[in-house]
């Protein structure tokens, strides 16, 4: 399963797994859209912590889901982004349409230390 869902009240968390390229984007899009059309969450969080590779197809995926969410006034959050994922997202100015959630989880500790060392 490339994506699993977890519900927290009116928030839906979609945990994306594996590689997000043009090939993988289509089934991801279908699964997420099916679920959010049914649930109409007020917040959709796309979680990238288990994403091992992403190119600009991931940005298309985010932008497309944003457009759909907007039809019922839903908001979009992005979490668990690696430095590479974040760099690609930044090229698109995605932070204007989605809230970027940074957490102090164990998966981020290495990254934070590394950045502090630079």
């Amino acid at each position, binding site marked *: 399963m490339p994506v699993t869902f977890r519900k927290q009240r009116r928030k839906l968390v979609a945990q994306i797994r594996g*590689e997000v*390229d*043009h*090939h993988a*984007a289509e089934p991801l*899009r279908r699964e997420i859209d099916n679920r959010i059309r049914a649930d109409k969450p007020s917040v959709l969080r796309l979680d990238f912590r288990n994403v091992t*590779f*992403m*190119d*600009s*197809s991931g*940005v*298309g*995926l985010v*932008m*497309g889901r944003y*457009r759909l969410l907007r039809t019922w006034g839903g908001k979009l959050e992005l979490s668990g982004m690696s430095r*590479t994922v974040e*760099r*690609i997202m930044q*090229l*698109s100015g995605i932070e204007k349409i989605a809230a970027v959630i940074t957490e102090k989880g164990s998966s981020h500790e290495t990254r934070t230390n590394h950045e502090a060392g630079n």
Partner: protein
Amino acid sequence: MKPVQTMKLEIESRSVNEAFARAAVSAFASQLDPTVEELSDLRTAVSEAVTNCIVHAYRNSVGRIFITASVYPDGMFSVKIRDKGCGIEDVEKAMEPLFTTLGDERAGLGFAVMESFSDRVRVRSVVGKGTAVTLYKRIRGRADG
């Protein structure tokens, strides 16, 4: 400068090959002892170029994609991704961030990502004949951090 050695790969323009193409180029580049980040940058840039061949060059057909990767003695690495597809009418316009001819599910960031994740991008395109994108990336490697 002459390359130390060269690798050639020919694949069909099927999306399932995107992962294979970037993995193959990245495996070839590993002889330069790249950092994890350099390899990740390379994979990302190659993925964008190969995706362009599939979604643009051979939009409604399946064609062949020709990949040539070269290692240079000064640590430069180059990857040429060439197709015999439709070509690009206005390369400058195609390289503008957020410009796309493909509607809502594509961000129009392919070339922007290639430019951001490599040191230099060269594009040569002839309408009706095809496009060649060459990515250059200097691999500094793990030796000097």
